[in-house]
């Protein structure tokens, strides 16, 4: 893990880490998100939302990405936008990518009539975070999500 030192005002401070594609590694990542959220005195409820969004981004990649290096590359950034501080999490994999426009909108009613009850990850991420940007292609997928304090 590498940590950025003190940055000039207005520039993000960041922490990077790599986790293996392995069970419960997403929980290791959430500890870092929680520590940075606490550093900027984000509320516990907002930190929990970041943690769950991060969990969903990680397990999506674990399950679907088929990462060539069997790793996820995470970057956590703290910054300030006008008067508001934020915590940003970037999740990158070197997997096969996907077309987010083709991801079917889930609903509980569809879940009831289907054996497949999954596919909620992106919906949860978008609902819990303030800003979400998804870039995906043959080189892999990058999910960038931001939560304001």
């Amino acid at each position, binding site marked *: 893990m590498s940590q950025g030192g003190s940055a000039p005002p207005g520039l993000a401070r960041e922490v990077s880490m790599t986790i293996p594609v392995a069970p*419960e590694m997403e929980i*290791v990542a959430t500890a870092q998100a929680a520590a940075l959220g606490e550093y900027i005195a984000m509320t516990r*409820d907002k930190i929990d939302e970041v943690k*769950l969004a991060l*969990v969903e981004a990680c*397990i999506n990649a674990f399950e679907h990405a088929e990462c060539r290096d069997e790793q996820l590359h995470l970057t956590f950034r703290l910054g300030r936008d006008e008067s508001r501080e934020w915590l940003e999490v970037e999740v990158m994999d070197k997997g096969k990518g996907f077309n987010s426009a083709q991801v079917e909108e*889930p609903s*509980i009613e569809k879940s009831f009539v289907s054996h497949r009850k999954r596919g909620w990850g992106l919906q949860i991420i978008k*609902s819990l975070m303030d800003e979400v940007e998804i870039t995906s292609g043959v080189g892999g997928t990058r999910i960038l999500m931001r939560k304001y304090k």
Partner: protein
Amino acid sequence: MSESCKVSAERRGDVAILRTDGYINNQGGEEIAREAYAQLEGGARALVLNLEKTRIVNSIGISILIEVLEKVMDRKGMLAFCGLTPTIDKTFRIMGLAQYAEIYPTQEDALRGVNPQPA
């Protein structure tokens, strides 16, 4: 490092209270389902899931809870949740669980909800 979920059960008449402790992922969800199905087979009419010692439920865990909900609905039973963190509460509402199962702040509220008093 494991945050595996522990599930304990208590029976009060035909109501089963399931308490979770820890991260609800696929394993935690399956543990809950196993206990829930055993309680239903044992004659429980209503299930109360007390999640006050759980801070994260991922979407795989919730998808298993939806399966439990389906089984309860098939039996014309009731499923109630209590002790949810605001994030878990929000996630259950995003996924529509709150349309088919009741959510209460406390276990006592949930027990009152699944055992309505006659007017």
